[in-house]
C-alpha cells in the first residue's frame, strides 16, 4: 500500500494534514502527539506584517460546530522564519505555510521571503478567509482575480502552490478552474462558511466581529459536496476538508475524489486524531484491496 500523494513535483508521505489555524505553528502540540502520522502541517496564516487579530469574543460553539473570528492573528513572516520555522523543520511532516494578504503584493512579498527555505514543502494560498475586511475574501470570490494572483505566484516559485477556496461563492468550481488555469498545483477546499450567532439577551452578535467562519462536523456534508464538485471540475489534486472527526469522515472525502485531506476543528477535540484517521484509512484500504488513494477514487459509484 502506498498512500503517498503527489502535489506538483513533490510528494506528501501520507494524505493526512492538519488545517491552518487549528494547529498553530506545530510546537503547541509538541508534548501531546506523534507527528509521524501527519503528512502535512498547514501553518497558522502568515502575513507580511504581524497581525493582532480581531476583538474578542472570537469563538463560540454551535451545534456540532465552532464559529470563529480570529482575524488572521499571526506573528508575521519575518518572525515566522526566525521563531517558528526552526521547530517546524525538525518535524517529519511537510511544512506548508498558509499565506494571506490584504493586497496582491503582500502575497508575493511573503512567498519571496520564504522561497529560499528548503524545509518549506509548498504554499497554501488563503484567498478565502471570511474574517478579514477587504482583501482576502474578495480575492477568493472573483475568478479573474484568482487566476491572475495564481499566475503571478506561479512565476515566483517552483514549490507546490495550493489555492484554498472559500465556499461562500455561487459556484466553487468556477473559482477552482480559475486557480487551475493560473497554474496551481492543487486546490484545498473548503474554508469556513460565514455564520452568525445572536445573543437574544443583549441583542447583539456574540462574536465581536459580528460574523465568523463556521467549521466542525456540522458543515461536513457541505464540504463533501463542494469537494466532489471541485474534483469534477479540475484535473489537479484536491485537498478536502470540513468537519472531519474520524476515518469514516475522511474516507467520504477520498471517495468524493480528494487526494488528501485536512483535519481542522477535530484537532481541538482530540489531538491524536491524525494518528487514528491514518490507521483507519489504511485498514479500509486493506479491506477494499486498494493500494493508492487514486484507487480509492475509483471505488466511488455515481
Amino acid at each position, binding site marked *: 500500500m502506498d498512500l503517498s500523494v503527489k502535489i506538483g513535483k513533490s510528494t506528501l508521505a501520507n494524505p493526512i494534514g492538519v488545517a491552518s*489555524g*487549528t*494547529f*498553530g505553528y506545530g510546537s*503547541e*502540540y509538541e*508534548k*501531546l*502527539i506523534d507527528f509521524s502520522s501527519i503528512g502535512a502541517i498547514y501553518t*497558522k496564516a502568515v502575513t507580511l506584517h*504581524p*497581525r*493582532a*487579530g480581531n*476583538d*474578542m*469574543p*472570537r*469563538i*463560540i*460553539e454551535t*451545534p*456540532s*460546530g*465552532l464559529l*470563529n473570528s*480570529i482575524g488572521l*492573528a499571526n506573528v508575521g513572516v519575518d518572525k515566522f522564519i526566525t521563531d517558528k520555522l526552526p521547530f517546524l523543520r525538525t518535524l517529519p511532516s511537510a511544512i506548508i505555510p498558509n499565506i494571506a494578504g490584504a493586497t496582491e503584493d503582500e502575497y508575493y512579498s511573503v512567498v519571496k521571503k520564504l522561497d529560499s527555505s528548503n524545509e518549506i514543502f509548498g504554499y497554501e494560498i488563503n484567498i478565502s478567509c471570511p474574517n478579514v475586511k477587504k482583501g482576502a475574501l474578495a480575492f477568493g470570490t472573483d475568478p479573474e482575480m484568482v487566476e491572475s494572483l495564481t499566475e503571478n505566484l506561479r512565476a515566483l516559485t517552483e514549490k507546490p502552490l495550493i489555492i484554498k477556496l472559500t465556499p461562500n461563492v455561487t459556484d466553487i468550481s468556477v473559482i477552482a478552474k480559475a486557480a487551475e488555469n493560473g497554474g496551481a498545483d492543487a486546490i484545498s477546499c473548503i474554508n469556513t462558511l460565514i455564520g452568525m450567532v445572536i445573543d437574544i439577551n443583549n441583542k447583539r452578535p456574540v462574536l465581536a466581529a459580528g460574523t465568523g467562519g463556521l467549521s*466542525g*462536523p*456540522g458543515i461536513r456534508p457541505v464540504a463533501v459536496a463542494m469537494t466532489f464538485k471541485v474534483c469534477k471540475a479540475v484535473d489537479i489534486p484536491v485537498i478536502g476538508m470540513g468537519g472531519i*472527526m474520524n476515518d469514516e469522515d475522511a474516507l467520504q472525502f477520498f471517495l468524493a475524489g480528494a487526494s488528501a485531506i485536512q483535519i481542522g*476543528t477535530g*484537532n*481541538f*477535540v*482530540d*489531538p*491524536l486524531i491524525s494518528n487514528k484517521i491514518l490507521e483507519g484509512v489504511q485498514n479500509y484500504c486493506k479491506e477494499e484491496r486498494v493500494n493508492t488513494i487514486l484507487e480509492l477514487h475509483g471505488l466511488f459509484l455515481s
Partner: protein
Amino acid sequence: MVYTKSEILTFQKLSKNFYLLKFKWSSENDTPLPGQFFTIRVSDTTVPLLRRPFAFSNFDITGNTASFIFEKKGVGTEMLAAMGVNEELDIIGPLGNTFFQPQDDRPIILVAGGIGLGPMLFLAETLQRGNKVFNFVFGAKSKTLIPNQNIFKNINPVICTDDGSDGFSGTTIDYLKSINDDGILNSGHLMACGPLPMLKACHEFALENSTSCQVSLEQTMACGVGACMGCVVKIKQEPGFARVCKEGTVFNSKDILWT
C-alpha cells in the same frame, strides 16, 4: 502537559449546582499548580463538540489525586455532573501559568468569587504549605451558593453575600474597603479569581491602595493549548491581545486593558 485518561474517585455536591470532583493524577504527570487548568472531553459525540476547561482546585502529591470544582450550567457540565465514580475522564493538562507567590511579608489577600473558588483554594493550600499567612475572602450571590464549610478545611474564610443572606452583606470588594480604613492592606498582595466585574474591582482597589494584584481569568476556549488564538484577552502591551490559555490564566491586573 499530558493527554491522559483519569479515573474519577469521588464526586461531591457542594451547593446548588456546584460540584467537587476528585480524580487520579499520577505524580509522574506534570505537577499542577494554582491557576493552572486542564480540559476534559465530556462527550464522544459532537454535542458538545469542544473540550471544556476547568481549574485545578487541589493536587495531593502523596495520594496521587487532583480535584476541581465546577458549576452545572450547560450541556457539557450537565454531562459531567451525570458521570459517576470509576468512570474515566479524558484529560489534557496541566495548562497555563500560575500565580507568582510573594516573597516579602506584606499582607496577602485571596479573593474568590463564585466558581473562582477552586483555584483560590488550591493557592491557599499551597501558601499554607509555605507557612504564608493570608486572608481569604469568598463572595457569592446568595447563601444557597455557599459550599459546605468543610471544603475550606482550616482556611477560615470571610464569607460575603451580595444579598446579605449570610456573612458580610455586600461584595468581596465592599468587604476589603470596610476593613481597610486604616490602610492595613496597603502595599500588600491581592490574588483573585472570579467574575470579571469582581476582578476589575480588585484591580481598582489594588491601584487605590498600592497593592499588587494578580487575576486568574476565564475565557471561552477551543484548543486550550495556545494554537487557535480564540481565548484572548486585551492587554496594554503589543500585540494588544494575550491568550488566556497560554500567557494566562494568571495576569498582573496592570497588564490587562480593562473596559
